[in-house]
């Protein structure tokens, strides 16, 4: 990559020339420079990992810390704004990770999530009903993709339906990398904190069947979580579970409708929904920034030394297309199985909500196949507009007709 000593350090994240195509740098770096220096929006440098084995290895290795709020770690956002990766609360969550993760898991086990499925389906049906009340076209993202995950999380937190829109707005602002200013992010944070404090108090007075009530009961019995942790976890679930899943619903439908043969295959054989969702997760080129980790000591990785004090960025999306780990990696195969993609991370911090996210994605797909078999994109896939500036990439709109 370097021609002489004045090595060019590329800016990260990379831009894709086509919304559904991977940036050409991924294949290049995987091939020639699996540990590549890159420049972050803040101007700081980090090391980008693009090979499956490296990404999986780092994410599974606890020596690579999630704590970026230290002086030595690279900053991510522009204009000095903190991102969700860096702020103090996520650092304190990291310290107490074992404790609260165990608590959270109770609510996200496969059994609990399976029990939520009928409710997710009912919400999806309702959103589709509302969408088709108007004549086509409609924005599938705004009508179904954006609301569904907030509705599901509001259910988890026991938040009343009337407040769903407020939560959606705060969630959007808190995840900003460059789109909102520091002041706007802090304002959203403060409003959300205030709301959640009142909400926790109300739940404490009158507990429900929801996750938040369970967490509160645990706090009151002195079992596990402090009040502060409780609020942070409430926020964490919203930030971790809303935009990610919303954007994924939009991207899933764009990928599956963008080539008619994919949609037709699923119509002919809906039993492929499960593997199709996994393949969509693997194939997504717009999963965003990747996961940053910080290492304090020198570490050997596949024969290279990563010096202590390095911030590494794990690009799961690039790793998901590594031909060393996936046969015909650049081909979308809705029957692919097994499909050990890294879209939900791996190792001790892997996504707690992944069973729920899978259930939401599978349910949306099943309901749309059943209800709207004639569904089609209302604009050519190449014209879909990417939403920029957020940590999690996605489309602005996914216009459809039926």
């Amino acid at each position, binding site marked *: 990559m370097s021609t002489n000593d004045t090595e060019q350090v590329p800016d990260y994240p990379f831009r894709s020339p086509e919304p559904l195509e991977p940036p050409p740098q991924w294949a290049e770096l995987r091939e020639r420079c699996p540990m590549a220096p890159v420049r972050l929006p803040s101007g700081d440098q980090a090391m980008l990992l693009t090979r499956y084995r490296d990404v999986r290895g780092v994410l599974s290795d606890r020596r690579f810390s999630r704590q970026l709020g230290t002086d030595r770690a690279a900053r991510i956002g522009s204009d000095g704004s903190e991102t969700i990766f860096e702020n103090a609360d996520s650092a304190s969550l990291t310290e107490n990770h074992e404790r609260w993760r165990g608590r959270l*898991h109770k609510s996200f*086990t*496969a059994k609990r999530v399976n029990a939520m499925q009928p409710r997710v389906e009912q919400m999806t049906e309702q959103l589709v009903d509302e969408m088709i009340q108007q004549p086509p076209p409609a924005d599938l993202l705004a009508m179904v993709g954006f609301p569904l995950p907030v509705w599901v999380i509001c259910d988890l937190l026991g938040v009343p339906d009337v407040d769903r829109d407020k939560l959606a707005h705060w969630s959007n602002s808190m995840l900003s990398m460059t789109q909102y200013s520091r002041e706007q992010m802090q304002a959203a944070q403060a409003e959300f904190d205030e709301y959640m404090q009142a909400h926790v108090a109300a739940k404490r007075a009158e507990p429900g069947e929801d996750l938040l009530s369970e967490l509160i009961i645990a706090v009151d019995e002195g079992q596990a979580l402090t009040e502060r942790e409780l609020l942070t976890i409430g926020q964490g679930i919203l930030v971790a579970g809303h935009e990610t899943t919303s954007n994924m619903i939009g991207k899933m439908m764009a990928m599956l409708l963008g080539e008619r043969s994919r949609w037709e295959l699923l119509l002919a054989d809906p039993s492929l929904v499960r593997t199709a969702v996994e393949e969509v997760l693997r194939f997504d080129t717009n999963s965003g920034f990747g996961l940053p980790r910080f290492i304090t000591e020198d570490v050997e990785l596949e024969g290279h030394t990563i010096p202590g004090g390095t911030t590494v960025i794990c690009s799961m999306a690039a790793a998901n297309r590594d031909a060393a780990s996936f046969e015909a990696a650049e081909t979308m195969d809705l029957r692919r199985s097994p*499909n050990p993609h890294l879209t939900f991370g791996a190792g001790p911090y892997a996504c707690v909500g992944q069973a729920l996210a899978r259930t939401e994605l599978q349910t949306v797909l099943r309901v749309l196949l059943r209800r709207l078999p004639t569904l089609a994109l209302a604009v050519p896939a190449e014209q879909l507009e990417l939403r920029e500036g957020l940590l999690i990439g996605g489309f602005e709109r996914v216009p459809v007709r039926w």
Partner: protein
Amino acid sequence: MTLRVIVDRDKCCGAGQCVMLVPDVFDQEDEGTVILLDPTPPESLHAAAREAACVCPGGAIRVDESG
């Protein structure tokens, strides 16, 4: 052919992928950690058990098909 499933509970991150895939072989404790229900599943479940081992995000599942 027997297939033996081995789990390393220390590596399990509790995401429940294995339970979703093969509920006859895997379950989870309340806290999320994997429970092995059937270490030698019938042949009809071998493919699914291999898939679970491959996709487990913790790398906590192995299948031994040596004997």
